[in-house]
Every structure is written in structure tokens, then in C-alpha cells.
């Protein structure tokens, strides 16, 4: 019981993911700044922002649905945290694992986007509602390529459990090279999930202020921002587990260090992507995802299917 509580709240639970999330946000912002010829924030800036926001007043708009408005940030954090327990960090075993946890993780990672939608929609502000509608529109565009690109390695490993995928690829290391196109697709789709440039359309500042989060303030906004930071870490961990499963058998310490390196590498790629491109329009984003990314993901899926037949 005590161990379970420790796992949930401290390590690798809430405290660890929160701290890692804030660090990830700092690294992302610092890299972004350095690539833009700026100095960037000090290391404690994300934490300071969190504390500052938590100390501020929560304002619930008069016409908003108070219950949903307040509940959504909590659901977002909870679902992200839950999905993290099924992702292997060091070694090839996650904290919890069962057959088919891949589907559960993907499902749990969809929930935050739905909470952004609901939170924004029930804010009853025009900016929030447009942002919420864009959230959902975007969800349908990136979710399919992300699912397909992650299912391809699962197909090859012949298991629907993340730990199983890690285990398979750490014993067949060369096959992972085959999934590199899938890795690129997954990174692009992850940019959409995390709402980062070029896919930050739902919260495009110059158009709709802060999108779905326009009416949020105080603790609730702090929670949403924490959820986004955690989503960054969990999303990066997921890709690291599926696409970069090497060096898993050097013991916990080395494995953990390697895990951090892998996640930071993916975060670095995300920062790079948002430095070098402009924001797309929602129609451009959808046609790009459906006409370019989704077919490529499907090809990757087919290729893995064929490779599986060749190996067996």
C-alpha cells in the first residue's frame, strides 16, 4: 500500500512527472530562445510561473458551466499521469503492464485534448469556443497518423503492450532502424497533440488570444499548464519507448540516464521544429495530415507487415 502510494504520488508518479515536466518546459524554452538568438528564461522560470499562477484568484466566467470548467484541468492531469505508469522508462518493464496497454495509453493521451475542448467550450467565450472547435478539428487530423505510426512497431513486435514492444526491439535492435520514417511521422503528429508550432492553431495567440484557455486563470490555468508540460514529457517518453528502445539492459541507473537523454533528444527535436517553421492554417494542417502524413504512416504500417512476414 505504502509503496503504491509512493509510486503514484512521488516516483515515478506525480512529483517526478511534474518536476520533469517543468524541467522539460525550461529546456524547451531555453533551446527555443538560444536558437532565436535570445538568452531565454532562468531554470526556475516554469516553477515560478506555476507558483505565481497558483497564488492568483480563480475566476469562473458568469455564463460558464462551473463544474466542468473546474473539473477539466484535474481530469487532464490525472489521465496523463495514469498513462505514464504504463510506459517503460528504464529496462523494458513499465511500472504496470498488461496485454494491450498500448491502446489504453493512446486513449488516455487523447483525453487531455478532450478536456481542453470541453473546458474551452463551456467557458462560453467566443475565443474559447473557436479554440475548442479547432482543438477537436485538429484531434481528428493528427490522431490517425500517430496511432498508425505507433501501431506499426507493435505489429512488428507482435504485442500490444508497450513493455513487450520495448523488450522485442531491445532483442532485435536492427529492426528499429526500419521504423525511422514512423518516428518522424510520430514526432510531427506529437507536435499536433502538444499544440506546438506549426500546429499551435487551437491557441494561436494573435488570432484567438489563448484559444480554449482564454477564460482560465489562477490555479485552474496553472493545472492546465502543468498538464501540458506533463503531456510533453509523457508523449516524449512514449516515443522514446517505442522508437528508441536501445540500452535497456545496463541496469536501472544507466537505463534511467539513457531514458532522460532520449526524452530530452525528442524535446530538442520539438523545439527545433517550432523554431524553424510558421504556424499553419487549420485547413492546411488538416490536408497536410490527411494527404501526406496519414498515407505515409499507412505505408510504414504496410512495410512493417511485410517485414514481419519476411522475418518469420
Amino acid at each position, binding site marked *: 500500500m505504502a509503496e503504491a502510494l509512493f509510486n503514484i504520488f512521488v516516483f515515478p508518479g506525480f512529483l517526478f512527472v511534474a518536476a520533469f515536466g517543468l524541467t522539460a518546459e525550461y529546456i524547451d524554452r531555453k533551446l527555443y530562445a538560444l*536558437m*532565436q*538568438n*535570445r538568452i531565454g528564461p532562468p531554470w526556475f522560470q516554469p516553477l515560478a510561473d506555476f507558483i505565481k499562477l497558483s497564488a492568483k484568484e480563480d475566476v469562473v466566467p458568469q455564463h460558464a458551466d462551473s463544474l466542468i470548467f473546474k473539473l477539466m484541468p484535474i481530469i487532464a492531469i490525472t489521465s496523463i499521469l495514469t498513462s505514464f505508469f504504463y510506459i517503460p522508462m528504464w529496462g523494458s518493464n513499465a511500472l504496470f503492464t498488461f496485454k494491450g496497454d498500448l491502446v489504453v495509453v493512446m486513449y488516455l493521451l487523447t483525453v487531455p485534448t478532450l478536456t481542453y475542448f470541453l473546458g474551452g467550450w463551456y467557458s462560453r467565450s*467566443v*475565443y474559447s*469556443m*473557436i479554440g475548442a*472547435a479547432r482543438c477537436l*478539428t485538429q484531434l481528428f487530423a493528427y490522431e490517425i497518423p500517430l496511432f498508425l505510426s505507433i501501431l506499426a512497431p507493435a505489429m512488428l513486435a507482435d504485442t500490444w503492450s508497450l513493455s513487450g514492444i520495448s523488450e522485442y526491439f531491445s532483442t532485435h535492435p536492427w529492426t528499429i532502424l526500419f521504423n525511422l520514417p514512423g518516428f518522424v511521422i510520430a514526432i510531427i503528429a506529437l507536435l499536433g497533440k502538444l499544440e506546438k*508550432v*506549426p500546429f*499551435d*492553431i487551437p491557441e*494561436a*495567440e*494573435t*488570432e*484567438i*488570444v489563448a484559444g480554449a484557455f482564454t477564460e482560465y486563470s489562477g490555479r485552474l490555468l496553472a493545472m492546465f499548464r502543468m498538464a501540458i508540460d506533463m503531456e510533453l514529457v509523457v508523449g516524449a517518453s512514449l516515443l522514446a519507448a517505442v522508437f528508441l528502445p536501445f540500452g535497456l539492459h545496463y541496469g536501472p541507473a544507466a537505463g534511467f540516464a539513457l531514458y532522460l537523454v532520449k526524452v530530452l533528444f525528442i524535446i530538442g527535436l520539438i523545439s527545433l521544429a517550432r*523554431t*524553424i*517553421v*510558421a*504556424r*499553419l*492554417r*487549420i*485547413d*492546411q494542417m488538416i490536408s497536410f495530415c490527411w494527404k501526406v502524413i496519414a498515407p505515409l504512416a499507412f505505408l510504414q504500417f504496410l512495410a512493417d507487415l511485410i517485414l514481419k512476414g519476411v522475418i518469420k
Partner: protein
Amino acid sequence: MPERDVKLTIGPQHPMLKEPESFLLTLRGEKITDMTVRLGYNHRGIEKACEQRTYIQDMYLVERVCGICSHSHSTCFIQAVEEIAGLQVPKRGLYIRTLVAELERVHSHLLWLGVAGHEIGFDTLLMYSWRDRELVMDILAIISGNRVNYGMNTIGGVKRDITPDQIPQILTAIDTLEERTKYYIQVGTEEITLRERLSGVGKLSKEDAMRLGAAGPTMRASGVNRDTRRDDPYGAYGELTFDVITDDHCDVYGRTLVRLGELMQSYKLIRQIVRSLPAGPIAVKAPRKIPAGQAISRYEAPRGEDVHYVKANGSDKPERVKLRAPTLANVQVVAHMLKDGYLADTPIVIAAIDPCFSCTDRAIATTNLDDGRKDRMVWPALRTYSIEWYSKQGINFTELNRKLRTMRESN
């Protein structure tokens, strides 16, 4: 997407806008079906204030019409005054005026490039171009002592001379900027997302540009070959060679290319000016009282053609000053360009005219919320209204006014 029409107000306070202005968009999904612009949030009564001050004071006041193209407004105003007074500005003075004007164009266009990048979520472009803008700001500070309101002009010439040791500094900065601008041209033409976001957005055909009276780069990007610097030369432009940049894209992408091309022309002009700076005095002495007369002065500001009208009555104060900032010519065009566009394109379409709303507002009309009646007040009525409004608040100026009058009379 909600299928019913949504009314979205952008402004007067919105992250997209740098100055208060209001745009009411009617949206169907992401498409804009209708749009209205409301001007007048920045009316400062500058024209009226000019009538109550001397020409020298007005020069400083007019310089503060705009924070970016301050030299444009002050030069435009002074050209009109000089024309009425029949002053012949020495050549060196004209060259220095033109030099500051071109440096100002460089800093204004670099600023625009950054803003445009920010509006489409490309903050890297903003950071880069604003970093480079510092170079030209430094040069302006070296020449005039100020970064924005240079205070270089005076009636009859300029106030500060260019010293020989400033010339190499200017040339080095221009060399660096030229290299960077070439890089931006490369980014603008090769970066896919940037091109995707700018192409085909905010279409304005040549006919519409002429019909709606667009000005500056907005007009030239629609293929209209018109530039006051060439068509009606002022300052030293008549003796300098440069090309007028036009483009046939007729969209925001074309406007970007025109501005980047104009940057390259500005560097060319600045080099010509500092290399052929004539010797001699920089100003002639101007009379305090300007003889009666009137003049219209035209000036190609970074944002388009600036027009000033001055009427003198023989005293040391002008009788009437009328300013038309280029944004006023372009703001009607925005409504046309946004029709049937996407909400996501609104920021960049509005930004693409390089709006300067504070400079534009010359009048204010109020709408009575109770009966929808539109009010316009003439000067005495406004005065009476303000006296009544203050006395309702318990503030009475009658006694103070009487004291002021007796003080004046005793003097």
C-alpha cells in the same frame, strides 16, 4: 465548427493589435463573411493643437504623430512650411534629411518583417529581424542622439551635421544589414510554411488597389508602379538613382517581397548619399513668422504616401494643418481583402498594410447607445460640453479662468 454565424470582436484590446482599433468579424466556421472597422480610439486632436502652437513647436508635435515614421511626418510638415516661406534648403541639409528618411525606412520595414512573422506564429523571424533592427537604431542614435523621435529637422534645414567619422560606422552597419536582408529574402522565398501562409492571402487586384486608393507597399505589391520619391522628387531623391519595387503577386507574399526589395534599395540609396554628401551649410535661417499662403506636401513614408496641408496666415502660428497618414488610405482596403478570407489570416492581412492606427485617427464620432444617434461636435460645443461635464464632477474652472485673464491683462 459552429455552423451559425459567430460575431467575433477583435479589439480594441487584443494580442494581435499593437494599438487600439476595433474589428468586428462575422464568422461562419473559420470563414469571414463580413467585417467592419471602427477607427477613432486614438484621436489626440493633433491638428487642432497645431493651430494653437508656433511653427517650431508644431514641428515637435508633428514628429510625435507616429512613433515609427516620425521623421516622415516632420519632414512632410516642414516641406510645406518651407514652400510657403519660400526657403531654399541647402543641399547638404537635404541630403542629411534623405539619409535619415532612408534609415527610418530600413528600421520600419525590419520592424514590419518581425511583426508579420509574429502574426503567423513564426517568432524566430521576429527575434532575428528585431535583433538586426538594433543596428540601424544604433546608427540613428549616433546621428541624431535619439532612437525614435530624431528631432533632426528644423525649418530651413537640419539641426545636426554628419561628421566624417560617422560615415564608416553607417557603411559597416549597412553592409551587415544588406547581408542579413539577403538571408531574409532567401527565407521568404524558400521556407515552405512561410510561403504557404502568405501566398494567396489578402488578395488585392490592381484595379481594386487603384479604386480603393491603396498606398505604399500595399499598392506596389498589386502591380501599381507609383512612388512619390520618383514621381514627385523631394529632398535629394531627384539626384539619386533607385528602382521602384513592384510585384504582381497581389497578396501578402507580394507585400513581403516588395518590402524586402525596398530594403535593398534603401541600402543602395544610403550608400549613394554618404558617398556624395555635398559640402556646405546644413540650414538657412528661417523667419519666425511665416507669410500667408498654403501648401500641400507629399512624402513617401515607409507605409505609403503621407500628405500634409498647411495654411499660414502671416503670424507665427499656422491657421490650419491637415495630416493624412498612409494607413488611412489603406484601412479601407483591409475590409476588402478580408472578405471571404479565413479567421486565421486576419492578423497577417491587417498587419500586411503595416498599420499605424494612432497616426491615422483625425476625428472621432460617437454613437449614442440609447438611440443610436451619431454625434459630431464642433469645437465650441465640445468646449461647452467639457465645462459642463467638469462642473457636474464638482470641478469649476470659472474662477481659475478669471485669474488667468487678469494675469494676462496685467502683463
